């Protein structure tokens, strides 16, 4: 099935969970990433239980604190 990850269309396996996508996408420090699917937040304790569907749009939002004092 096709989903969109950070604006890029991808072919992924049926039944893919958010938890597996986070691994597949090599998300840096996944414990601190904010995930949205179709403009809804997915809580961290729901990563395993959230199965993606055809056409879903997933975004990873990262903490960005600053450069250098």
């Amino acid at each position: 099935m096709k989903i969109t990850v950070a604006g890029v269309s991808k072919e992924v396996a049926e039944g893919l969970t958010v938890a597996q996508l986070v691994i597949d996408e090599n998300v840096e420090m996944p414990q601190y990433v904010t995930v949205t699917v179709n403009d809804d937040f997915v809580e961290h304790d729901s990563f395993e239980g959230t199965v993606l569907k055809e056409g879903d749009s997933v975004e990873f939002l990262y903490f960005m604190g600053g450069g250098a004092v």
Partner: protein
Amino acid sequence: MAFTNEQIERYSRHIILKEVGAKGQKKLLNAKVLIIGAGGLGAPTAMYLAAAGVGTIGIADADEVDLSNLQRQIIHQTADVGKPKVLSAKETMEAMNPDVKVIPYHEFITSENILDIIKDYDFIIDGTDNFPAKFLINDACVMAGKPFSHAGIIRFQGQLMTYVPGQGPCYRCVFKEPPPKDAVPTCKQAGVIGAMGGVIGSLQAMEAVKYILGVGDLLTGYLLTYDALKMQFRKVKLPSDTHGCAVCGDHPTITKLIDYEQAECDGVGL
């Protein structure tokens, strides 16, 4: 208040714009913007707002200018090393434009003083480099009903969002809690390209100007991300459901400001 001839000439490129005009320029001259952090983001923001004729600019930062700041904090000069950043910033802004009144706050922003400082301002710029300050600014602006621009930069990446009360999510809607101390690289550990502050700080100045003029679409409800290596901007839509947020939601659980532990290389300006 009528413009002087000098002002008509100084602001002619603004006044000629139909979105600004004489009326808009007066709005800018009457506006009050607070910039928290006189560093990589705050420097270009402050300079563009001063040049634009924003009449009152507050600038808060507890640090002194360090030689390693000059790679990106273009409001400070080599001769300013050792000087409080807010004074160096004030001198630069006032030299650029005598119409601007600069109010320096040479202190750390804390839960004790932030509400008192932001109360007189129309728009707040978060130009800080650490998560405790970012969450404090967010929570204080939500509680005080003040619009603000969030931004963060690191390495070759930047992000930006605008909060306006009642018009979309706040920073805490998106990022629930600050990451543990030193968990996410900030500050000296990671590095940043100096021009990143110029790109993202200038966008913060642009949001402030648009807010003051009341023109265009602000970055409310969106997170703008910038990847300089890919040379890619993305405007990512944020969830519009803010009901459950701990600070701006329907039943806030955060009703008092929190001073989170600072990361090791603390200090307000990037």
